[in-house]
């Protein structure tokens, strides 16, 4: 009977469990969870603040998930060391477990750059976990003035979640635009305008230089008084366990399409990894929940002796604020062409290079965008489809008769 160990208990771990069990019903699975919660939907913490969900509904799987999959869940403990030679892990309390196959799903941690006087701020929070969220919820009042450092996905979802529950929200970011990791200037400007129309204030191109209690001085000299500080500058992949054991990696743990690390019988999945983005042909950390599940599932199948690859990963995000949605996927390689439609309510930008769709940014019109995403992932030559129609409206009609027959006349 094979012994499987999964370090971490997020969505990558859930994918790993389901991947293992799709092949091996017998082997023992032990999951080491630092958080005292069953696997939950991390991106839903802002929806929790917004009161659109609750702790129960935020659970990723049913209450019986671990029992159904015969998983031994060890909560409130973290792994301190992987002994790759001995094929065992050691926990923070000294307990050790042997494995035949190990998957590292350790996720990422908030990155806080050095800022003078940060230790003088009483109410400061990260926004990554349920526990962060519950602690933040404890201190906010209708009179709270909130300062959020970071106008990325985490900072802005936090702003949306807090909206209506606090007096004011100011978001600052060193980048000159909001959502700088996924939107270009024009798209970001539309999103920023919409956020501002909903009462969120911005200080862009600058960040906090120093704090003195509830007072922040920005690098550009602006001063902000606040009651609650949220630190959402960025995250760093948790790579130490695998790297200390001799595993390869850069900003993330290096993994193959089969989700193997450079160490025998050690796999990794999710936000702790760096892997191949086929849209830009580069290796990067893509901390995205769908990819985390797919990596975890792939790792699980392979750990159990099956054969799986996740070889069409791309960055992609679906995110909305106050009713305005945005879909982005892929990349904009240097020298790409752009197809654009834009008006007051929506923007569509498609990026094309070497007869392939490499990426897109869409705001305000989300109908059937998965057809575009599939074009990026399949790297379909655009000369083989009716792209003149497709770019106006995503539709199977423009994908050619053979494709349509395949997907509509048979099981896929």
């Amino acid at each position, binding site marked *: 009977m094979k012994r499987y160990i999964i370090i971490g208990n997020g969505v990558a771990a859930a994918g790993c469990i389901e991947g293992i069990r799709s092949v091996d019903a017998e082997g023992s699975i032990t999951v080491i969870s630092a958080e005292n919660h069953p696997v939950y939907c991390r991106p839903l913490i802002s929806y929790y603040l917004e009161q659109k969900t609750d702790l129960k509904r935020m659970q990723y799987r049913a209450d019986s998930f671990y029992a159904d999959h015969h998983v031994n869940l060890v909560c409130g403990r973290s792994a301190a060391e992987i002994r790759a030679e001995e094929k065992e892990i050691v926990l923070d309390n000294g307990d050790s477990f042997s494995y035949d196959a190990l998957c590292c799903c350790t996720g990422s941690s908030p990155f806080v750059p050095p800022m003078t006087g940060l230790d003088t701020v009483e109410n400061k929070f990260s926004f990554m976990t349920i526990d962060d969220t519950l602690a933040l919820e404890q201190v906010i009042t209708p009179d709270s003035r909130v300062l959020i450092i970071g106008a990325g996905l985490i900072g802005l979802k936090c702003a949306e979640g807090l909206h209506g529950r606090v007096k004011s929200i100011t978001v600052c970011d060193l980048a000159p635009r909001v959502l700088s990791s996924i939107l270009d200037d024009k798209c970001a400007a539309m999103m920023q305008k919409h956020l501002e129309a909903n009462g969120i204030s911005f200080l862009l191109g600058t960040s906090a230089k120093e704090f003195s209690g509830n007072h922040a001085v920005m690098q550009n000299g602006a001063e902000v008084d606040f009651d609650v500080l949220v630190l959402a500058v960025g995250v760093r992949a948790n790579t130490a366990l695998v790297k200390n054991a001799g595993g390869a990696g850069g900003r993330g743990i290096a993994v193959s399409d089969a989700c193997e690390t450079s160490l025998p019988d050690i796999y990794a999945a999710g936000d702790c990894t760096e892997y191949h983005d086929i849209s830009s042909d580069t290796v990067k950390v893509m901390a995205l929940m769908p990819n985390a599940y797919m990596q975890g599932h792939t790792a699980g199948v392979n750990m159990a002796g099956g054969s799986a690859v996740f070889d069409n990963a791309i960055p992609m995000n679906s995110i909305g604020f106050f009713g305005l949605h945005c879909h982005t996927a892929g990349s904009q390689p240097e020298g790409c062409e752009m197809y654009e439609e834009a008006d007051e309510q929506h923007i569509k930008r498609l990026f094309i290079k070497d007869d392939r769709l490499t990426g897109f940014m869409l705001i305000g019109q989300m109908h*059937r965008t998965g057809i575009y995403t599939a074009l990026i992932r399949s790297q379909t030559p655009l000369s083989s489809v009716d792209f003149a129609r497709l770019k106006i409206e995503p539709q199977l009609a423009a994908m050619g008769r053979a494709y349509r027959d395949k997907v509509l*006349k048979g099981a896929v």
Partner: protein
Amino acid sequence: MKRIYVREEWCLGCHLCEYNCAFANSGMTDMVKALRGKTIYPRIQVETDENGVTYAVSCRHCKDPVCVKSCIAGAISQKDGVIEINHDKCVGCLTCVLVCPYGAVVEDGSGVAQKCELCMKNACGAPACVKGCPNGAIVYEERGERE
């Protein structure tokens, strides 16, 4: 399993399947009251190709569904082959819309996602698009891997 397939040579392009779908999922008993004067958000879409051939597209109930794997709320599941959305858990992030290669998951007009669930959760009990198609251009049947 039984799935919905189209016989495009018989499709009239009348869009009645879209109306029947919207009605079946409206929870109402009177079609006129359910649909009159309203923008409909059907879970099936009629397309027209470059030669004027029409056909309806709805969820393929894929064997390896990317929407299930991608849902950030754990709200999409597959049981006995049927993919369904738990609307109590869906928060309307629309990741499923972003990843469905067939454009078969769509917004429901109130900001959350919806897709064909073969009318198994509504009063219809069997696909309303199939039942209501005037020319037999949508069928619900067992088929092999590919014809």
